[in-house]
């Protein structure tokens, strides 16, 4: 299957710090690639380069189309209601009014947003905000979805809901790159890329790399 993301020998420096060092990876449609690594391993820098938010110093990056993106901090406009956020970002993604309405209704149904749809986002819990952020990231039906620690700080239920949404997107053929600190989430991914000091320490199927969460810790040492 042709890759939808291809990064070859990518490097990025901030002053004398090598944030990402000669890293290569690919992503296939429907694949969930988990980026694992300790704080400062270079996950966020790599994600920002894959999104095109910053430029790499060396190497090449190719992404099929404009990726859907979601970060750890809430990207929603807090003063707008859920429906207004969906309409706002739908318009910015260039979707027509009818399409935004249709997609908005789908999101509200799938998340069972009924009572919350006309509530300002700032009054919602972190879990709901992240679920809505993810729904907005997939509004334009991107081929690639890039998620930067989307489950950080969420409770178990919210994390479960978010992972259900991610797996639904992958089943529909969307390739997902997700960075996470939670080792248990590594086993929800179809492949892993473990980063250490900006380099790729290991990659492959989670089952091939480690039998348990504690095995994964070996890669961090």
């Amino acid at each position, binding site marked *: 299957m042709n890759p939808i993301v291809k990064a070859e020998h990518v490097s990025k420096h901030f002053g004398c710090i090598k944030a990402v060092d000669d890293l290569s990876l690919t992503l296939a449609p429907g694949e969930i690639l988990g980026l694992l690594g300790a704080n400062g391993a270079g996950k*966020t820098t790599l994600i*920002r380069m894959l*999104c*095109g*938010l*910053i430029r790499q110093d060396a190497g090449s990056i190719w992404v099929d189309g*404009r*990726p*859907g*993106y*979601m*970060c*750890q*901090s*809430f*990207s*929603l*406009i*807090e003063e707008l209601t859920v429906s207004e956020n969906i309409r706002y*970002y739908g318009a*910015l*993604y*260039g979707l027509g009014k009818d399409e935004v309405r249709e997609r908005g209704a789908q999101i509200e149904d799938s998340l069972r947003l009924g009572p919350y749809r006309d509530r300002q986002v700032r009054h919602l819990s972190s879990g709901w905000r992240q679920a809505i952020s993810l729904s*907005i*990231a997939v509004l334009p039906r991107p081929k690639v979805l890039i998620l930067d620690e989307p489950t950080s700080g969420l409770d178990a239920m919210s994390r479960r809901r978010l992972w259900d949404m991610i797996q639904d997107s992958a089943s529909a053929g969307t390739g997902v790159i997700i960075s996470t600190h939670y080792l248990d989430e590594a086993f929800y991914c179809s492949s892993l890329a473990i980063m250490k000091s900006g380099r790729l320490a290991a990659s492959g199927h989670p089952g091939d790399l480690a039998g348990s969460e504690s095995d994964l810790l070996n890669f961090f040492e």
Partner: protein
Amino acid sequence: MLKAVIIKEIRHIIRDKVSCMILFLMPVFTLILLTYALSFEVNHYNIKVFNADNSTEAEELFVRLDSYPKIQITGRVGSVGEIEEAFATGTTRAVLMYRNGSMSLFIDSSNPLMTRSIETTMRRILEPSESIPIRYLYNQSLKKEYMPLPGLVMIIFILVSSIVLGISINREKSQGSYKLLRLTGVANHHLIFGKAIPYLVITLFHILVIYLVCLYFGVAIVGNLFTFFFLCLLYSGCCMSLGILIASWLDRPIDVLILCWIVLFVPNVFLSGFIFSNSSMNGVIKFVSDALPGTAFVSAFRNIAFKGTSFADNLPYFLLLGGELLGAGLLSLLGLKRRIPR
């Protein structure tokens, strides 16, 4: 325990650039302004003279007048009709006319503070010899409302156009929505215009209110209304551009608020000639004062609204405001392009 808190606080202050600016730069800046640069006393007047009789007595008087350190004769007027023209750009404060063997003094009273000052000075110099009839132009009843109005409008526009808009743009960055906006493909200039237009509408509302307030206080706007509204819009646009410039290079809304306060609000209030006369400023302070959008706005406001001067008479002020609008706008685009918050 106390020691630990003190050490932590010292480190906090030293490492937070904005705190350092407030704690060290701001007091020095204010001290220099209030002790050296600013004075309520007006120590320099540009005047013009008109010798209708071609009298040698008048010429001797003009030479004596020019020798006073506070007075500088910057030119001559050829006829009575040219007197108002002399006041058009706002650089001439008074015209001394010698006709039919007696003197008359014409004073630009669009700025009542300056009017009182120049009147006192001129009387002190000239009246030992004879009493001078004085004619006040533009604000004949010397209404005090003429004095603060341009400055107040200037402050309102800085608050609405620079500070609130700057914080609003910066909030997008701090909330994380800016990264998402970048990925939606929305162009930076669309983002800027999209955010600025509602504030422009609010500004239009304020301009209308200002116009009504002028009418209410009997401060007639005698100039071309279109030119007056254009001036207000251009100044508002300039303030927006400067606010966006600050917002685009900083990551935290609180930093934007503080920096807008330090580099826009305080200098424009103190140095624009609204509270302290520009005539008393020298050197670098005078240069800064002349470059401030507030100075251009207050001067052009007085000229257009109170004196009825034309767009062409105020062209340098319009060019300065337009130039700063464009310059700050371009630097903002650069800042938004480069500065992606973490």
